[in-house]
């Protein structure tokens, strides 16, 4: 059972519709109690890192999610759900969860910001979460003004480029995240959700 974290600023329904279409068991999670009944967690995200964290804190979910992740529960963050995993975001100068070392910066204004649209992702290595997906030449849907720069480059499973190269998909142990909207990236994005539904949190 996948728990999809549902908070005011999030887009949990879109992720729920995608899982429903794939026939994957899931439930929307709004509090720490509901989190106990799931064995995988998706943190969807739209909007701002500071608003997302404030909304999770208000629901009393941050410590509960952290405890599950520390226990090895497979976790997938999406979009802002990726950005909040790092140490710090320039968006609102916000301290973030610090589960992955690195920071989140704003794209320079030399390109239109936000980045909105389909961009190519190049995967850097094999991993169960990208099973069935091509190494290069495949496009995923991004909406972001900020991008993550992990301290350890091996955290980057997939890279994309906009102004500069940035982390499109990150994995560290049982913590994974996509900067693109896997639930809105057509059949390839849905494949990642399918892969996540059976992922045990390991690298192989």
């Amino acid at each position, binding site marked *: 059972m996948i728990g999809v974290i549902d908070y005011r600023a999030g887009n949990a329904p879109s992720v729920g519709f995608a899982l429903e279409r794939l026939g994957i068991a899931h439930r929307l999670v709004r509090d720490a109690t509901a989190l106990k009944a799931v064995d995988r967690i998706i943190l969807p995200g739209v909007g701002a890192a500071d608003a997302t964290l404030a909304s999770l804190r208000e629901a009393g979910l941050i410590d509960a999610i952290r405890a599950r992740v520390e226990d090895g529960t497979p976790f997938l963050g999406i979009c802002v759900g990726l950005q909040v995993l790092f140490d710090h975001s320039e968006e609102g100068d916000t301290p973030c969860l610090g589960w992955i070392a690195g920071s989140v910066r704003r794209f320079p204004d030399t390109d239109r910001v*936000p980045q909105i649209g389909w961009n190519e992702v190049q995967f850097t290595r094999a991993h169960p979460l990208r099973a069935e997906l091509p190494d290069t030449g495949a496009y995923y849907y991004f909406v972001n003004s900020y991008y993550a720069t992990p301290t350890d480059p091996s955290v980057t499973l997939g890279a994309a480029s906009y102004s500069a190269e940035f982390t499109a998909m990150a994995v560290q142990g049982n913590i994974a995240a996509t900067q693109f909207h896997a639930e809105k990236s057509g059949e390839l994005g849905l494949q990642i959700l399918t892969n996540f539904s059976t992922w045990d949190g390991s690298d192989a």
Partner: protein
Amino acid sequence: MSLTKRLIACFDVIGGRVTKAVNFQDNIDVADAADLAQRLYDDQIDEIVFYDITASSEKRKIDLETVRRVAHHVFVPFTVGGGIRNLDDMFEVLKAGAEKISIDSMAVRNPEIIRHGADAFGKQCIVLSTQAKKVEASSAIPSGYEVFIDGARTATGMDVVEWVQRGEALGAGEIVVNSIDADGTAAGYELEITRLVADNVNVPVIASGGAGTPEHIADGLTVGGASAAIISSMLYSPRLERNYGVKELKDHLIAAGVPMRPYR
């Protein structure tokens, strides 16, 4: 690796059915909104935008049931507009499965709705759509394009370029330039105003109104400087001699040098 341009299918919806008008009038019935959405998703459209075109004039809430039905079929981005008056309306539309909210006449009446929406849901969520009509340039309207509202019926006295810049400053994450003169003509986008807007804002700009051929789309995305192109009739209108599939359009655009997500 780079960002591609987007093809956006637009639906004008009345009572759950997609309809087609010319110059904002004379609607004919095309298909059930969810059925057409499913067909276009299967055909690999990049994005879908749905306008509940009578919600505003009938002073009622947007048709959430249809939003929900469409959202169940499309796993590409989905924007909804029409009849959105406040933050609660936006929240309901997002919870029904839309990613983005398009605001037009309501934003002219109450520009603060842009700021409030962007603060609550992020600027990427707020699409400012504007209806532009060519007029004589004047001190009040230096660009020579005036903002109209309420289905092109009401002139506002506002300059299109000044308005979209204000919208961007208030927090709009994308701007749709819908030409009233070109809409429904299938004679091509109004490239001049599209380019003018693209050159004067730093958020993505979407060309709308008038596309009838693949060349028109290529022009909107190159000469017009748009990041995305809204198309409707050419995909599905029974009034046109022929309709186009997404693959055919993408093949043409890629051959013309426009970066697109390739058809798989």
